[in-house]
């Protein structure tokens, strides 16, 4: 019994048929691309050129603002439910087509809702492996999305970094697939290493959950940087570390206090904000604070001692230096900002 017979008999494809099918499919694809002049190279560049509809919508957004965001939100939700998305994702689940649709909403949040101002864009390295290290704030991972947006817009290569997100996101329904499609990846050293090796830029938040859930009175005070794993990773992989200070995300969901009982019962944190359990689902709407994202001086791997990735004391020393840098970035930016909400 050979495999060709088995394949044909059971309606499957034999190897010869498979290669034939693949070739004809590739031909078909080039045919479609040339005839309709669409190129959707989701795999290579991670970006899709916006189609006409989305361009039209974006023009509408400029005029209407809120209604544009509403339709963006509706489009995003409809994309989620009716499966209007691409049939290829990258290995971490980013869906270029989906991201393009969500961009309407992200643009609205970036330009109108939070009015993000970027400083220090000249500090972004031109190329190579880059690890952004930022302060974590605002319960939900808006800061990662906005940093990715800021880098994509202000860097000439328009590369969109991937951001790392907390574990508990994965245990909640809806949030995990949503985040994965928008470019979020679960925060763990294995993922960060694979992303960096794969040529992605990575945004990491060494404060972790402690930063996201810290009470409002401790805003803009950095929590501990747990193990300094990001330093040894950057040393091993020759990545440039860019410290990032994000001001404004702390006021998005000001945490009044954080009870432990629901957390123990549900398995994920449930902080109390002025609006959250009180206003129901409306409490999930982030407050429209004014944001500033500031990129600090990059720390190149050449400036550090590469051979000392396993030297815990040296790693911790670098870690604390970076922590101090981000803290001072934050303090400068907080002073520079005149009002929390008004621009």
């Amino acid at each position, binding site marked *: 019994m050979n495999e060709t017979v088995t394949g044909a008999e059971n309606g499957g494809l034999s190897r010869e048929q498979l290669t034939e099918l693949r070739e004809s499919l590739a031909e078909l694809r080039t045919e479609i691309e040339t005839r309709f002049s669409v190129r959707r190279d989701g795999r290579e560049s991670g970006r899709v050129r916006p189609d006409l509809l989305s361009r039209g919508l974006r023009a509408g957004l400029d005029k209407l603002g809120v209604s544009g965001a509403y339709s963006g939100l509706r489009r995003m939700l409809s994309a989620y439910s009716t499966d209007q998305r691409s049939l290829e994702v990258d290995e971490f689940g980013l869906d270029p087509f989906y991201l393009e649709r969500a961009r309407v909403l992200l643009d609205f949040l970036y330009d109108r809702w939070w009015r993000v101002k970027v400083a220090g864009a000249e500090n972004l390295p031109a190329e190579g492996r880059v690890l952004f290290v930022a302060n974590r704030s605002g319960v939900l991972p808006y800061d990662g999305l906005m940093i990715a947006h800021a880098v994509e817009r202000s860097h000439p290569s328009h590369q969109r970094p991937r951001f790392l997100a907390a574990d508990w996101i994965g245990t909640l329904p809806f949030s995990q*697939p949503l985040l994965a499609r928008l470019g979020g*990846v679960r925060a763990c050293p294995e993922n960060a290493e*694979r992303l960096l090796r794969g040529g992605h830029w990575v945004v990491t938040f060494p404060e972790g959950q402690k930063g996201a859930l810290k009470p409002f009175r401790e805003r803009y005070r950095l929590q501990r940087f747990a193990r300094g794993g990001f330093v040894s990773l950057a040393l091993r992989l020759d990545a440039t570390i860019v410290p990032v200070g994000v001001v404004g995300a702390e006021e998005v969901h000001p945490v009044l206090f954080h009870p432990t009982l629901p957390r123990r019962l549900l398995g994920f944190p449930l902080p109390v904000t002025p609006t959250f359990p009180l206003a129901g689902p409306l409490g999930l709407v982030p407050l429209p604070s004014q944001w500033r994202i500031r990129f600090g001086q990059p720390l190149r791997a050449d400036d550090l001692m590469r051979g000392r990735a396993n030297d815990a004391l040296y790693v911790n020393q670098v870690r604390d230096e970076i922590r101090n840098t981000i803290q001072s970035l934050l303090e400068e930016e907080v002073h520079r900002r005149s009002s929390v909400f008004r621009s």
Partner: protein
Amino acid sequence: MAQRLLDAPAAPRLVGFDLSVPRSLDGRLRFHRVDLTEPTADSMLAEILDKERCDAVLHAAFFTDPRPQQECAHELEVIGSLNVMNAAAAAGVRKLVVTSTAQVYGPQPDNPNFLTESHPLRAPPRAHAIRDRAEMEGLLGVFAGRHPEISVTSLRPCWVMGPNYASSVTRHFESARVTTLLGFDPLMQFLHEEDLLDAVELALERDVPGPINLAGDGVLPLSTLIRLAGKRTWPWPHPLLYRLGYLPAVGRTGDPPEAFYDYLRFLWVVDTDRAKRELGFRPDYTTKEAWMSFVVSRRLRRYR
């Protein structure tokens, strides 16, 4: 199934073992009837292996699906495997290849996106079938440490799809409305059945000791796969499904429903870097192609 593949190169002398004599038996295959759960199975097997001067042993005597009879399954999967290991050591076999599964890593919310072979095995504690397999892997590790002269390979394939392969997993995906968990859409990987046989053949040819992950290239979200197949989903809120599904699941497999549904909830994608680098494994089918070959074959089957 592996026998069929091994017939093709027509190189080594093959010796087959099973509980019962297979219906179709190739003349080139020398067949012995062995019950691995018998207390004397190890010495009996060692005797035969010695007499036939066997070089390599492929141990694939596992249940494809979880069985309701947990003790019986444990007896075969763990004790039976132990018998095979002991017999292989006693008969001076040079190589032992075991077909395990990538499910032993367990679906966990805090898994990294790609599980490497060194990742701890964190199978769901109440899934007896996976737990037995993980226990077997543990014994295999100890065995490999004790017998450095034997090259011990355990293959860990992800879910296998294809026109011929049938398991509880393929049965789950066969229905027109596939039960899923509301709000969960993990990235999935599949391996085509022929690629699995290729990998087994490669593992027998080359010496690559240790565990090896096997999967087709590429990952796709579960919902995209179901949509590609033209099926519809039946999304259930997971607390409800875990409670309602309890009775039928226990009746069918002896496992609580989360033993299976967690695999549709959390990520358990494996990194096949080692298989490619050291084993030289090149899957012919990507995840999508393996899935489509499964879907197409099942669809045609309806019209025969």
